[in-house]
């Protein structure tokens, strides 16, 4: 491991935290009402700039942790301020950095913007800290720290049943975290008993030898926390309440960013620390993933409330991530990681749009909405695009991830993938139904006058739209950075469990074979040889 001269990652965590402190310290009476929001946007913009710099400096072929910073924090306890980034966390960091400014700009707090923005910035620091931590205690602190701002955001700025939703969210996730804490301490002490060194650093703890039972129990303890946070079926019932009652900003951040803490935790900690147990218990998790996909979709079909519908659709999409993860193949896991990014972008856009609908019509109940496409065609167009991305129409981002997850699962657990395919059909069912109810049909007087998206709103959602299209057409830059880290992880699991993923998942013989057959099929005088065809045609790429 090498340390970069400038501590980019530390800066990533501190920038929003400092922003939060500054916003909190500037008294509300002395400055205009927009001042705190502007400060918040500035802090998130700086964070985004640093995140982009990190992405640019990121070495593509390297699957290990990069740009690490490591400082002793509590020496006697073996706790380190240890941060690092790899292909799995890179895009989650970028996604969070993109979503936070959008969440601040997309839905503005009705009252007390100072506290609101401050909480949001603190949440960003906690989320980025969680994605970057390589020390288990540090991770746990950040992981828990996310709860506090979220609790206040839901409870303070939410809708009618906000108090109930906030407490349910807090208690439920907190209960899960208790298992995580026990698990973390146990791993560290087992490691100490084997090596004599007390440390909470992930790279060291990876080498801990665990007996079968120990592995399984610790895996379950860790997974309890992550499964609640994601949420994974059947630990999801806090989420419809929390998503629906939270203000738009809260819904975006809960579903877009914080849900990924759960799935990220599974990939980062479960697979790294407990490869044996992950492999043994994979069928159970795969089954929970598939149930989540099908059950989430079926329940979504019965929702009459856009926010709850999206909440259940989110359960289904997270099921895909779990499925890909526990397929433990290169395609499945890469697809799962990519799908985390895709899901974040798509669900953020959906909640943003629903928030704007609610702002105009005072409701997101399907029965109150009708024929909005007539007066708000741009909103309808963007909603359509996002909906198709969520359904998984190819050419948009959702498809690539879903396809990788399913093909990566199919080659090892065929019937789980086939069962999950039904979810692909159901996704179309409930989303198109919702679209028809809300945007199609003849609007009544109230709906007829719904305002279309203004320029500022279009600008806010534009980055999401662009990313949704871009990642659908050209996901290569992302996949090239995810795959080496995923390969490392899969290799780690395989090494411990003495298993091997199928040959088709790894070998590249396919593309070589096609190259030669093209050459044979193309006649010399007219058909350009493959090599030249590749260079000439690169000009003709899509704009």
């Amino acid at each position, binding site marked *: 491991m090498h340390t970069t001269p400038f501590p980019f990652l530390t800066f990533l965590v501190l920038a929003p935290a400092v922003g939060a402190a500054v916003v909190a310290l500037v008294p509300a009476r002395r400055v205009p009402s927009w001042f705190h929001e502007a400060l918040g946007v500035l802090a998130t913009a700086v964070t985004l700039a640093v995140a982009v710099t990190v992405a640019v400096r990121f070495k593509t072929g390297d699957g290990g942790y990069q740009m690490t910073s490591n400082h002793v924090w509590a020496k006697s306890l073996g706790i380190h301020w240890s941060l690092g980034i790899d292909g799995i966390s890179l895009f989650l960091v970028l996604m969070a950095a993109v979503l936070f400014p959008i969440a601040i700009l997309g839905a503005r707090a009705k009252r007390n913007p100072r506290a609101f923005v401050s909480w949001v910035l603190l949440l960003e620091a906690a989320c980025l800290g969680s994605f970057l931590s390589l020390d288990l205690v540090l991770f746990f602190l950040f992981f828990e720290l996310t709860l506090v701002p979220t609790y206040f955001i839901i409870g303070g700025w939410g809708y009618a049943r906000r108090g109930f939703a906030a407490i349910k969210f807090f208690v439920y996730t907190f209960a899960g975290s208790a298992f995580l804490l026990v698990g973390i301490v146990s791993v560290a002490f087992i490691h100490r008993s084997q090596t004599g060194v007390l440390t909470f650093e992930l790279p060291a703890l990876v080498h801990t030898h665990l007996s079968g039972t120990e592995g399984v129990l610790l895996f379950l303890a860790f997974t309890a926390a992550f499964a609640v946070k994601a949420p994974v079926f059947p630990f999801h019932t806090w989420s419809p309440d929390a998503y629906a009652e939270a203000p738009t900003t809260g819904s975006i951040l809960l579903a877009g960013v914080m849900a990924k803490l759960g799935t990220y935790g599974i990939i980062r900690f479960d697979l790294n620390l407990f490869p044996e147990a992950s492999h043994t218990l994979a069928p159970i998790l795969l089954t929970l993933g598939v149930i989540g996909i099908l059950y989430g979709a079926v*329940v979504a079909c019965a929702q009459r409330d856009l926010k709850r519908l999206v909440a259940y659709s989110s359960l289904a999409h997270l099921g895909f991530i779990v499925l890909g993860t526990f397929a433990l193949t290169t395609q499945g896991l890469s697809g799962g990681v990519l799908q985390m990014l895709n899901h974040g972008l798509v669900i953020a856009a959906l909640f943003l749009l629903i928030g704007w609908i609610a702002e105009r019509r005072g409701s997101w109940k399907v029965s109150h909405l009708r024929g909005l496409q007539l007066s708000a065609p741009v909103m309808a167009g963007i909603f359509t695009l996002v909906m198709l991305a969520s359904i998984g*129409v190819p*050419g948009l981002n959702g498809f690539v991830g879903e396809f990788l997850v399913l093909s990566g699962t199919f080659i090892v657990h065929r019937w789980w993938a086939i069962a999950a*395919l039904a979810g692909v059909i159901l996704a*179309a069912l409930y989303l198109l139904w919702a679209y028809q109810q809300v945007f*199609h049909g*003849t609007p009544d007087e109230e709906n007829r006058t719904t305002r279309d998206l203004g320029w500022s709103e279009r600008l806010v959602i534009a980055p999401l739209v662009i990313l949704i299209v871009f990642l659908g057409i050209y996901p290569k830059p992302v996949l090239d950075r995810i795959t080496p880290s995923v390969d490392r992880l899969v290799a780690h699991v395989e090494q411990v469990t003495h298993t091997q993923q199928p040959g088709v998942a790894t070998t590249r013989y*396919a593309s070589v074979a*096609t190259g030669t057959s093209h050459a044979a099929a193309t006649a010399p005088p007219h058909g350009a040889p493959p090599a030249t065809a590749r260079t000439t045609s690169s000009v003709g*790429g899509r704009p």
Partner: protein
Amino acid sequence: MLHLTYLIVLLPLAGFVVQLLVGRRLGEPAAGGVATAFVGASFVVSLIVFAGLLGVHAPVRSFTQHLWSWVPVGGLHVEAAFTVDPLSMTMVLFVTGVSTLIHLYSIGYMHGDRDFPKFFLYLNLFVTSMLILVLGSNLLVTFVGWEGVGACSYFLIAFWFTRESAASAGKKAFIYNRVGDAGFLAAMFLTFDKVGSLDYTTIFARIGSIGSANITAICLLLLVGVAGKSAQLPLFPWLADAMEGPTPVSALIHAATMVTAGVYLLCRINPLLHASSSASLTVAIVGAVTALVGATIACAQRDIKKVLAYSTISQLGYMVLAVGTGAYEAAIFLMVAHAFYKGLLFLGAGSVIHGLHDEQDLKRMGNLRRYMKVTFWTVAVGTVALAAIPPFAGFWAKGDVLDAAWSRYPALWAVGIVAAFFTAYYITRLTSLAFFGDDRWRELVRPAAASTSSTTTTSTSGAAHGTAGNGGTSGDAGHGGEAHAPEPPHEAPWTMQVPLVVLAVCAFFGGVLSLPFVTSPTLLKWIDPVFGSALYNAHQSAALQWGLGITDSVVALIAATVAYRLWSTRSERPALEPVFLFRSWYINELYDLVIGRPGTRLAEFAATVVDTKVIDGAVNGIAGLVRLTGQGVRRLQTGYVRNYALGVVLGVVLLLGFMLTRLWWA
């Protein structure tokens, strides 16, 4: 010249982007003109690429253009790449050609529509997707186009979205297609699992290592996709509802191009089908049965577009039958010929609907040959071509299909010839009702008639009485909503007539693409190398071919005569329009009963009982239990020292007792 291939796709895509950015500012008719120009330019580029392909001298002319690496993950490596070979080239030429004509026609048809520019935006996107589908050099790129055309079809069917029936029809089309697409996806997974690649060339090169059971599975899974896209049994009901879309859409998407994508896909994977006789037979059976079922339903419809929709289902069945027989060339021939005459019939129907102010009910037409001469003669050509009466295109095309079936699956030939009888019957019925008989359209005063008859013709009411349902908000091409005044119908503007005439000429002479008994290579023969040994050759004697041809003609002529005698004089013959056929064999009711209603109940049950009562109930139950425990235990915290002292004493006693028993036992 071949390196221009990407432009074939890029041009309509550019048209789409232009419409997206400035479509509304361009307005009418400029937006339509721009869209037409982009698709026309794509057609011109296709011709150039075609010339380039003809210059390639190889056993199998083929050129692959790699654009960029799309999904590279480990062993899975999918390129965004296009392949031009005789098969895809034929499709490209006919897709861009027909699309250009229909774009032109739409400028007239969509005149005055509020969303005129948006219509062309969708059309351009559709053409882009269709070309991606056709040109894709691997299954995944084909799938991009495959889903893309499905999405565009959804947009365009639901184009008049204020009409509830149109919105529902769009959704229905998407969902039926999605069911098929799940099959397509599964086929891709299995292919990747067994081959490690999705490239057509690689798959075909490794066909020996896939294993016959897997090949059959792949073919059958793809057949599920084909059944969705090409409206075959059992996934065909969406196509009839799709007629809610504007008529040019029905012509372009739901007759000429998109619905033939399934047939194209089956032709594309011909080496796989060739390797599995059971899959081929299944394909042939599905096709033949669909041909018959579709044709029977078409006989009892009263909405002009629904007749044509079921006719399309039936004709697609013939194409699928041809593929299953191994007669790929015949399938492509019928596909192209069908695009001509069915496109023509739809545009003719559109002209009639346009002329009668959005009347789609055949029973309220009649004697239109007097008022719409161009439409009548062109539709007449289409009718004869579809009825398969020589020397029109349909005769040669369908004849090839049936000839091949005769030699390979005689039983399916019999099904096909029965379907051919119904085909000639229903299309002659349509023409007789619309263009002969009395001026029935004079008799009606619109609103009252709509309200009374909508009860009797519920399933067609959405389309047939569209005007009544419009409420003046959307309007079929902008002239809906007014009460239907019985003034003589008018002929359409030139933009609508030119495509009619061009297509009529094609429908007349389309047969020259592949004539029998011609020793020089016919136009369609050049695609044969693509199929190689997979192409079925019946080796039929001239006498047999004559015999089969005469049989086809006689059957068609009898059916046409019967239909003309029955329907040119009377418009109501309930005995010949059984409800069973009118309601398409009750297949919609069946799906509703078996899937729709139980599904809704399941979802309700899952949401209201499982989720809220069981799962969330357990969560809340645990929370409640904790609270109860807390309340119970709270009583112990009395604050009196004497109570605590009692507790301490009890504890000590228990502890001592425990230790004593341990000692005792020890």
